[in-house]
């Protein structure tokens, strides 16, 4: 199982993928809001979304798991 984690502290603004969606390396899967910027979180590996851990509006720390891939 591969995990996509938050690159920095912030708020989860948009979740772009749902369970079952295929994801390619480099695809944006979540957009964080942090330091007044929209921060796209890119997939660091490819796979299929098995679990969306984060919810929109969540306040997350750096390295918090956002999405899990197969």
């Amino acid at each position, binding site marked *: 199982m591969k995990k996509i984690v938050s*690159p*920095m*502290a912030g708020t989860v603004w948009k979740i772009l993928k749902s369970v079952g969606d295929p994801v390619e390396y480099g695809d944006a899967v979540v957009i964080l809001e*942090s*330091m*007044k*910027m*929209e*921060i*796209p979180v890119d997939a660091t590996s490819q796979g299929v979304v098995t679990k969306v851990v984060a919810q929109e509006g969540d306040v997350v*720390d*750096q390295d918090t798991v956002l999405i899990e891939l197969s």
Partner: protein
Amino acid sequence: MDLYDDLDQRIKWAMDGGRNNPKSAQLLEGKLFVRDRLSLFFDGGLDMEDGLLAGAEKKVPADAVVTGIGSVGGRKVAVIANDISVKAGTWGYQTLLKITRMQELALNLKIPLVYFVDSAGARIDEQKQSYLGRTAWGNIFHNLVQLSGVVPQLCVLFGPSPAGAAYIPGLCDTVIMVDKKATAYVGSPRMARMAIGEDISEEDLGGARMHCTLSGLGDILVKTDEEAIAVAKTYLGYFPASFEQKPSVVEAVANGASVDLTKVIPPDQNVPFDIKALIQGLADDGSFLESKELFAKEMTTAFIRLGGRGVGVIANNSKFKGGVLFNDSCDKAARFIWLCNAFNIPLLFLQDISGYMIGSSVEKAGIIRHGAKLLSAVCEATVPRIAVMVRKAYGGGYLAMSGAPTKPDAMLALPTAKPALVGPEAAINALYFNQIAELPPAERAAFINEKRQEYAKDINVYSAAADPFAAEAVVHPNELRDELIRRFAIYSMKSSQTIRRRNAVHPV
């Protein structure tokens, strides 16, 4: 045997190193033999080599290291190159004498010194004469420090560099690492298991990719020995022979793509974009050499040429972590500034910065110390320096990115620039804190929104340009390249003085 045949045979034996030894086959797998590396690197091989016959009495060809001087792109460069095929490239007593002699020679001749590192470290059976005392392996590091900032010191890590030897990459200006081959660690995986019970692979503990991505020890990750050598040559092309000279300005190459840069920079300040597209749009074609591409990606550092003149670029990259300043991004930029300033390479800052990262994790990790380091490097730099406000230029981040108060030679701005002490969100909440609290909760959002819009309208490039020093010129992005070329040509004539003192007390 004939006296002269004897000499020929001894030379051949030393030149062959361990390349014909079956035991070395594994060590050379997927690698070039040291002398083949040198043939690729130097215009016509080495002009001179010292100590070729050293180590022969121990049956260790050249004592596992080649030291010499040759020409690279027509300029003299000194080299110290380990031979992994001989005793795994380990250091003996004669290795130490050869290495330190070439370091002293490079210092005296004021020519760049390149370390081709591929060595299993110190030879334990020769420690008695080589470890303690005034003539010992540690002299290598002492000399590295003496040479730092006098001549360029480049490390190409082709293979291992364990324990003490890891401080060669640690002390060089820049480190090129070959993926899957280069390693550096203070303690090996075996030692990690013995000392702290950690079970970890060599690649995860000290591999090239780890160092280029996470530790920051590696600057440029390459795939092969050949690529490493090609990059080393390109890199040296940006540098003068020593701090006493200026880098050569080569023939200008046009920026052929002529990308419309107004399309590259999103006017919406909250939308991230890859600053490298802007840098590429400014640079001479084919001149982009990025340092630490994989490390602290929110800060881009690269060598480019502008009209043939080499320039070091330090740029906030909002594509990663919003371009915010973190501890690692500050370190990355500070080191790059020191490197360029040491060797008379002008600096170009591209600002798109909402500030230093906020929160307990960065505070505990010492972001103030690291931010102070960057500020210190910027304020100490005396080379020609131009800063360009590309988009956001907020607060402390603006200063750390060579804002006008840090006295760059020019502070330019694009029409998309947004200079302010703080952004609209934070500003309104601070300015109207009491008023907001007194309002009925239902009216607060509308009030805040209205005030933010007023504030946002007020922070624009022309309010900054009203002060002639806050923005010396507001430039169309498609005219920025020519503006920079003209200005760097002028500022390259400037005289600069360093303050008389022993050393500044640098934050780290």
